[in-house]
């Protein structure tokens, strides 16, 4: 049969152990005051955990290039979503509104 042979059982347990260790690492690094690095570190560890799940639990490591392309495409679309929303909202200065011109407002007939 040419379908991929099942992975060895110990690989799944090894990945589980790695994921547990990384969860503990997330816990302790969250408690440390890393300043501006705290978010990148937390997300970085989450990305490593996600990579382990995607590559080994979801068998992407041994999948077709087309599957890998689809996954890359979904990550690209997510990046587009986050990047453009973020750059939009974070460059709006709407916390500081121009003062209300009461005379102009009250003269408008509704």
């Amino acid at each position: 049969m040419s379908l991929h042979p099942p992975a060895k059982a110990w690989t799944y347990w090894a990945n589980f152990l790695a994921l547990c260790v990384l969860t503990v690492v997330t816990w302790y690094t969250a408690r440390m005051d890393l300043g501006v690095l705290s978010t990148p570190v937390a997300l970085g560890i989450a990305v490593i955990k996600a990579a382990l799940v995607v590559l080994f639990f979801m068998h992407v490591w041994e999948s077709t290039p087309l599957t890998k392309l689809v996954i890359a495409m979904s990550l690209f679309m997510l990046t587009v979503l986050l990047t453009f929303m973020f750059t939009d909202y974070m460059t709006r200065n709407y916390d500081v509104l121009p003062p209300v011109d009461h005379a102009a407002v009250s003269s408008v007939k509704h």
Partner: protein
Amino acid sequence: MSVTEKSPNAAHSGHDHGNSHELAHHFVSVEQQHDAGNLGMWMFLTTEVLFFGGLFAAYTIYRYKFERVFEQASNILDPMLGAINTIVLIFSSVTMAFAVRSAQQGKSKAIVAWLAATILFGCMFLGIKVFMEWKHDAHLHVFPTADFNWTYAREMHSGGEHGHGHDSHGPEMKGILFNAPVVPQKYIDADARNPEAKQARLFFFLYFTMTSLHAAHMVIGFGVMAVIMVYAWYGYYTPNYYVPVESVGLYWHFVDLVWIFLFPLLYLLGAHLGAGH
């Protein structure tokens, strides 16, 4: 046809209808069928990435706008329960991976056993979340409903034992999910004066929406798994045809992936603030 078949059923496909369900007529080989099924499932997971991605985007924007209040609000949640749930869900992913592996090996009854274990740990996750976390959240009035109260929540959370002492003697009010003590008027007035209350409510709206959506995905996963278990019990899946088992596996691992990102963003946001928060 001119394509050289490598699968053991090649000689029979199209002629033997005994196990023709292994290879559908519109596929050339079991490999192509398997890859096509996998690809289809990944296309669906792409839509799921953007489904949750929208909520993550909203979270990102508001977290940076209201960073301090979001950190304080995150501290109301219990990170230990969140961490336990993370391990429970990752373990359910391992049992799911073994279910797929059993399908690859052609062990039908083992598929059923591993899927049952996956459902069991998934239910454990939901039990901890709903009956331990959300029940406590309801008592603190952080559910983003009409009786949300940030001042009350902060005081009761940092008050600890004193807070619970007062609660048990107050009049009970029927909540949507759990009964919670009525919020005294002074807290309602304090919240009306405090613009940060709305920001905190935003955090909890995002928290409950994201975790509820995640929980709904889990419940749907249980249903699909139950169906797969029935098919597996009757030997429907073979080493040549286990795409449905692998597909539900991909779905469940995706649910785990979402939680891997939800946990640090929702629970550990303000962890560095320490006991003073």
